[in-house]
């Protein structure tokens, strides 16, 4: 096994242990915060090493194949989530909700072919990093909001109320989720702008309603609509939580589903 694969599989194993600890901790009302966060941080470091070794070997970043896209997204989503948990300790119990979502991507990653892809000439541009960077920040911010929304919704049940009893009120969690959705909207707007500038250079048109552009715009519209509804009508926390989850589901399908149903050149390598 190569150093890259060894580091990647070690990282995935650490994520799996951290996720199991988070789930067990929430269920037993004894959340081992330090262990979960520590294991995630260690896993991220090993995962970063795996991505770095591959980057050095191939001469380009993880932007091309589904293996690279999934690997880099698992890393960036966890990095953003961990950063948010570090700054906002109230988020930490949401690991029991966020990590199972990421397990889906990790399992998918484990089935992908790790062979290298072909770097198109139009990928040699700074715009790639700007577009992809804002895309990852957008999805990361929505994931954090999903963690908060999941806790609000879980507390609608008796068991969920017991699991997350020590957390602040639903209104406070909802306000925090709203803030992360707002950050996500700014990041997605910048992602779309950078993508349009890049598309103009790469394909001679800034916007052509290809499947990925169509669904990325629909995601933007849903997110903008959710924030607009939140600021204009002040929905109850469970309704706000449901909107946050709807945005994440649509964003996930856009970035990881659309590339499977289209042969358009725009494959959504975020």
């Amino acid at each position, binding site marked *: 096994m190569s150093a890259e694969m060894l580091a990647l599989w070690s990282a995935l194993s650490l994520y799996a242990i951290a996720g199991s600890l988070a789930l067990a901790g929430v269920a037993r009302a004894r959340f081992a915060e330090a262990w979960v966060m520590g294991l995630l941080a260690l896993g991220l470091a090993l995962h970063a090493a795996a991505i770095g070794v591959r980057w050095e070997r191939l001469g380009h970043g993880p932007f091309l194949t589904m293996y690279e896209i999934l690997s880099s997204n698992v890393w960036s989503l966890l990095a953003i989530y961990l950063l948010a948990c570090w*700054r*906002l*300790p*109230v988020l930490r119990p949401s690991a029991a909700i966020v990590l199972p979502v990421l397990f889906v991507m990790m399992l998918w990653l484990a089935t992908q072919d790790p062979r290298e892809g*072909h770097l*198109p*000439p*139009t990928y040699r*541009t700074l715009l790639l990093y700007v577009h992809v960077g804002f895309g990852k920040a957008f999805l990361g911010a929505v994931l954090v909001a999903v963690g908060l929304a999941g806790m609000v919704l879980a507390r609608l049940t008796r068991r969920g109320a017991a699991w997350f009893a020590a957390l*602040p*009120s639903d209104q*406070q*969690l909802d*306000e*925090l989720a709203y*803030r992360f959705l*707002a*950050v996500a*909207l*700014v990041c997605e*707007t*910048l992602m*779309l*702008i950078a993508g*349009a*500038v890049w598309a*103009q*250079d*790469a*394909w*001679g*048109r*800034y916007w052509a*309603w290809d*499947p990925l552009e*169509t*669904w990325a*715009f*629909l995601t933007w*519209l*849903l997110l*903008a*609509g959710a924030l*607009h*509804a939140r600021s*204009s*009508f002040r929905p109850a926390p469970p309704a706000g939580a449901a909107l946050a989850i709807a945005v994440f589901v649509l964003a996930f399908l856009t970035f990881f589903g659309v590339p499977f149903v289209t042969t358009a050149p725009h494959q959504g390598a975020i």
Partner: protein
Amino acid sequence: MRIARIRLEPAPWRGAAAWLGSPRLALALFALLGVAVAAAGRGAAPAGGLLAVPLALLALNLGCAIATHASFRQQPALLVFHVALLALVLLAAAGRLTYLNGTLEISVGEEFSGALTQREQGPLHGDAIERLAFTQLEFAVHYQPGMKRAQTESRVAWRDAAGRPREAVVGDDAPLRLAGYRFYTTPNKGFAPEFVWRSAQGREAMRGTVHLPSYPAQLAAQEQDWTPPGATQPLRLRLEFEERLVDLGKPWILRAPGAHALAVESGATRARLRPGDTLALAEGTVHYAGLRMWMGYSVFYDWTLPWLLAAAALAAGALGAHYLGRFRREPWRPGAERP
């Protein structure tokens, strides 16, 4: 002395504008736009036609909201964000009225003079492209092992507005820019046999190229039908390689083959021509001058591009400033003191 109390009623238009600019209507229009975008994405109709109505209604809603909602005057960043969104919609509409999308093919040594093979344009697009000219010089297309296209370097020459000769290498994401038009190289390119045709009626000889199908995309189908000017019988042309151009095992550069022949069929006449050969036919003589290359370009014109970018950047900046100002007022950590 008694002073009568006068109750100021809002002007009737203000009530209508407030309704048209209501947040509830905005949400309904978001949903309508979403449906139109999804329908456009499925190819139900051209995107421009489907999106025009919801975007126009949203622009009206936005304009009325800006005019009637006091919250915009209290939150300047939010106002700037919404004004920038309105500008984006108006600019996109102006762009659709005046844009041009097209394609062209041009042989090495030929001059582009405004003729496009495909053309799609807004109703207010003028004829400026017909006054543009550039000459296609040599080009190189690099390939990685396994038929994977890498860089395209296409040399072009033109005269600038002052009449000075200019030359540049364009390709991939670096277009040739002439008078607001952008010419992008495309994956379409190939071989172009050059002929001199003399019709049997003794008219003046005509020189030109015939573009064979794109290479290497249609590597095994390098043939084309061509009817010479004034003739009725088409010629069947087929390029026969006598050397190996493509080695899938290592990097290579697309070039015209040195050793080749051009198989020509016209009715019962069959011949294999090499550069310099002449073939006599019933309707005239065809002289094969040699093999050139042709490059395919897409051409794009939209004068609103820089303004769209400025409006979009302004919208994103204002949105960020609005949220930054709003979230700074309250702590991010529930229960923490205000900073």
